[in-house]
């Protein structure tokens, strides 16, 4: 006995890259994204990442072509919500042990460089 073949009604008939959903990725896009992600790239890196990221996005065009308007999104395998523990005080991480791992510490606090635009 063969189980019924499961049809996927939402699938577009053709999964070619014709269904591309966005403009091809440009070097400007990658430079912008790198800035958002707080990464600085050399011009050689910019060139290479643009090509590589474009090829991954192109592969993903197969899902761009799917007509799945009414399908609900899944963000998490099991939708657990409002998971609480008892509100009882208990020991936390040892402060000195935590601070011993920080690049710079002053008066039991993390020390950071000047925040942009902040008056001294």
């Amino acid at each position, binding site marked *: *006995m063969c189980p019924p073949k*499961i049809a996927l009604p939402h699938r577009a008939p053709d999964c070619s890259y014709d269904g591309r959903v966005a403009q091809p990725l440009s070097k400007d*896009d990658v430079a912008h994204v790198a800035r958002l992600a707080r990464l600085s790239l050399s011009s050689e890196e910019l060139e290479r990442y643009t090509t590589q990221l474009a090829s991954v996005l192109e592969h993903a065009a197969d899902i761009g072509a799917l007509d*799945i308007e009414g399908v609900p*999104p899944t963000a998490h395998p099991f939708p657990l919500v409002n998971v609480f523990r008892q509100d009882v005080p208990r020991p936390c991480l040892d402060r000195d042990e935590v601070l011993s791992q920080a690049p710079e510490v002053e008066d039991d606090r993390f020390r950071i460089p000047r925040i942009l635009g902040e008056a001294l």
Partner: protein
Amino acid sequence: MTSVVEMAAAVRRGELSAVAIIEQHLSRIDQDEADIHAFNLVMADHARARAAEVDGMVARGEDPGALAGVPVALKDLICTRGTPTTCSSRILEGWVPPYDATVVSRLTEAGAVFVGKTNMDEFAMGSSTENSAFGPTRNPRDLSRVPGGSSGGSAAAVAAGFAAIALGSDTGGSIRQPAALCGVVGVKPTYGMVSRYGLVAFASSLDQIGPFATSVADAALALDTISGHDEADSTSLPTDSARARENLGRGVEGLRVGVIAELAGAEGIAPDVAARIREAAEALAASGAKVEETSVPAVRYGLSAYYMIAPAEASSNLARYDGVRYGLRKPGADITEMYMATRSAGFGPEVKRRIMLGTYVLSAGYYDAYYGKSQKVRTLIIRDFEEAYRSFDVLLSPTAPTTAFELGTKTSDPLTMYLSDICTIPSNLAGHPAISVPFGTGDDGLPVGAQVLAPAAGEPVMFQVAEVLEAAAAAKGGGR
């Protein structure tokens, strides 16, 4: 090789000393580690002291636990208090966690002895362990080949006899694929079955810790030891354990096994791998299972959805590496410059690639087209699996499309590397468990892994089927 089950039992009875066991493993490490590079850190002194402690407990009439004296290797993204945890990244080089992961506490309570922290692709991003900042790991079966990844060091440590059990993490196949390539058993448990507390996050809705072992029974014991609810991980399931050993020894008579058509014979699956999976299906049928081909149509979109969802979550999770609280800091005139200098120096190329990809697919104008759509595909995959599990108890597929490939052959083209995960990704997207069991070898004589997939919390039946496959592979003479 003595099984973990026998080893721990003998230690508990006082017939075998934990010190003798660890010395045996350390001497194998001394002999072969320079060639293989399975570890970022070998914890020899710690392991000797700990083994003596376990023997001391037995001498005093105390029971050290179910894994008494068993040498365990930990992937280097599992936090160990007082012992460096690097994620094979320069950005965490030298970092010493101020707490233990829950799996570390549970293994300690069970009497295990930690041997070392294993090499991996940086932040678990990769399928060959070549993305490590500290150099690649080599496959113990053939040093010219990769061990798979990202948990390549853990798979290699078990395959080389450096540890009896190793833990890895699996976000898109990072336990199962290296297990297949190194010829050992590797398990990705149901999402939430094992606490992620103290696991450095890559993609939080997909990450899951699981064991490597040389046998199905040993992997089951290890999983039962580390699984179960943990208050410290709000996504952990409200169960006591995975009950992985519950159905062992029962055979597969009457069980229904579906061979996933889209993965078993698909384009990109090497003919020798496809042939082994057909033989695995035949072996299960010969043992009394009802085996049929079935279709899980949406899995063909798994790879695309995964390479949107996982980088999106990673781009958010890895924002924490900012040079403020721990790890590397490179100086800058203001805080933004410091962030940029630190992150650019600390992250390797694949991590940067995925952070940028994730940032892009989450950015205004592209969110719906890429990330939103991928989340819908995730729903389709879950639905198609649910449909398949109405007719079948478990599903079968290859674990990886090929046997272990040579170092350097896939590093220049990220997409080619990503295709290594095509059979393993669907289980992560669905949150389901899956196991890779060695099943014969390819034309090159290197191991092939058969993957058994089960529905959520289906570990008992998954291990039941895996054990029969293991016996069939041994009977064929090609299992190991």
